[in-house]
C-alpha cells in the first residue's frame, strides 16, 4: 500500500524474522508487518487480545520482549534483532491437566 523506501530493522516475531520500519513501536510493527493477529491470551478466560489504543492507555498490547513478559509493547521501539513473542494464557492449577499442586498430570 505505502512503500516509501525508509530505513528498516529486523525483529523476530514468534520465531519468524520480520522487516519493519525503524523507529516505530513494537506493537505497531507486529500489527502491520507480522502474521500475528493477537498479542496475548487473557489470564482469566483465555480470550485472545490485541491493542486498542497504541498510546499506553489500554494495556492490551502485552508481549514478551527479549525474554521479559508482559511488556507494554506500544511503549517500546523496535531494535535490530529484537526477539518478540506473543503470550499464551498462564497455566491455571486445576485446569488443562494441571493438578492443584502445579505438577503435570
Amino acid at each position, binding site marked *: 500500500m505505502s512503500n516509501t523506501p*525508509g530505513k528498516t530493522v529486523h525483529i523476530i516475531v514468534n520465531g519468524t524474522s520480520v522487516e519493519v*520500519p525503524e523507529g516505530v513501536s513494537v506493537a505497531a510493527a507486529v500489527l502491520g508487518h507480522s502474521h500475528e*493477529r493477537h498479542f496475548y491470551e487473557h489470564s482469566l478466560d483465555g480470550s485472545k487480545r490485541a491493542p486498542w*489504543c*497504541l498510546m499506553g492507555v489500554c494495556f492490551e498490547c502485552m508481549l514478551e520482549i527479549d525474554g521479559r513478559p508482559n511488556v507494554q509493547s506500544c511503549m517500546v521501539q523496535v531494535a535490530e534483532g529484537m526477539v518478540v513473542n506473543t503470550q499464551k494464557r498462564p497455566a491455571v492449577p486445576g485446569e488443562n491437566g494441571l493438578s492443584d499442586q502445579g505438577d503435570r498430570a
Partner: protein
Amino acid sequence: MNITNFDCIVIGAGPAGLAAACAARDCGLEVALLDEQAAPGGQLFRNVESPLAQRLLDEKDRRTGLDLVARFRAGGTDYRPHSTVWAIDGTAVSYSRNGVSERITASHIILAPGGMERPVPFPGWTLPGVMGAGGMDILLRSDCLPRLSRQEPVVLCGNGPLLLLLACHLLDAGAPVAAWLDTGDTLRRLAALPHMPAALGDRAYLAKGLRMARRVLSSGMPIIRNVRSLRAEGDGHVEQVRYTTSKGEYRLPAGMLLRHEGIIPRTHIPNALGLAMTWDEVQRCWHPTTDIRGRTSCEHISIAGDSAYVHGGDASLLKGTLAGIDAARRLHVISEAEADHRSAGTLRELRRLEWARGFLRHIFAPHPDIFAVPDETIICRCENVSAGDIRAAVREGFTNVNEIKRFTRCGMGPCQGRMCGPALAELAAQASGLPPRQVDMLHVRMPFRPVPLNEYCTLNGLGYEENHTA
C-alpha cells in the same frame, strides 16, 4: 551526575508540553521535560521528525510541529524521553526510564499528558481487530497498516472530528473502507446551531473541516446515520459488524472495526493528586478545574493542553505557552507586567479559538445511549467485569463507582481504570437514576503506572541496591 532539581518540570511532550517548556525557558527557567515516548511530538505531532508521519500531516500542521520541536530542541530544556512518571509527591516527581527509576524536584510542575479517546464498550470490543480510531492513525503514521482487503475492509463507527481525519488518512493510504456508522445525536447537533455564528469567526478551522468532509463524501463511502446496538463478532478476530438503525438490523463483513466517540482529558495524575475537577455536561467527562493560564487548585501545579479541557492541537500550543510564562511569573523570575506583556498575543489568539470550540463541543457531543449496552458486554477489559455485574452491584445498593469497584473488581487491573472508568460511571448512573457526576469518579492512587518493586526501592540509586554493593 544528572541534575535533580529544577525550576520547572513539564510532563508530556505534545504541543502543550513542548510550548510550555519553550516559554518557561524563554523566561529563564531551568526546565526538565519528561515524556513516555521516544521522540517529541505527543500524539498530534507523533514522529513529526520522521518522513513516515510527515506524509500524513497537512502542510500547516507539519510546519507548526517541526518548528515547535526544533525550537524545543534548541531551547536548552533537559529533555528526558522514555520516561514514565509514576508519582508526584509535593514537589518531587518520580519516573521510570529504561528500567531505572529516578526522582527529581522542581518549584513548579506543569502537567501536559494530553487527551485520550473516550473508551466506549460494546459487545465484542475485546476482539483483536477492534481498535480506537486514534490507534489506527498511529499505525498509519508508523507505516504499519495491517493487511486489509475488499473482503476484510475497515468499518468506522462513532462521532467526532478525529473520525473525519482518520477517514481521510485511510482514503489517502488506499485502505478499503466499507462504511462509516454514525452514532451522533441529531438533537444535540441542532443544539449546536446557536453556537454556529461565533464559530464562523474561525474560518480557517471550519474550512479545514469542510474540506475533509467533502473528501469523504466524494469518495462514495457509505455513511449510515443513527446507528445503535453495535456489535463485533468473530472467532479470535473481528469478522463481521452488526448494528441497528431505525430501519432494522444490518451486518457488514469487516477486517477491522475502528470506534471513536471523542477525546477526553487524561485525568489520572490530577485525580490522584486530589486537584479540583469539573464535570462537563455536554462532553460527559471530568476535567481538572483550571483557568485560562492552566492554574489549578494546587498552587505549584498547572495543567496545559487537552488534559485541562479538550480543544485540539492549536489551542494546546497556546495553553502551553501561557502555562510556561505563568510558571515564571509565579516563581518571580519575571514580573507581573512582563508576564502580561509576554502573554497578551497568545491570550488573544486562544480566546479567538474558543469561538469555534463552543460549536464543536456541541456538534460532536456523545449520545448518552452509546453506554446503554447489553448485560454481557465486558466493561473492564483487565478483570473481565461485565455490564451485568455492574448493574447487579447497583441493585445491591452500591451507587458510588469506588464501592462498585471494590465489589466487582471493575477498574482493578493493570490499566488502573483508564479503559473502564467513564463507562462504569455512565452505567452506574443509568442503573441508579443518578446524574453521572453524582456517582463520583474512580479514585486513582500512586503509582500512576505499574512500577516494579525493585525500581521503587532503588530510587536515585539509593536503598536496596546500595546495601548490596556496600
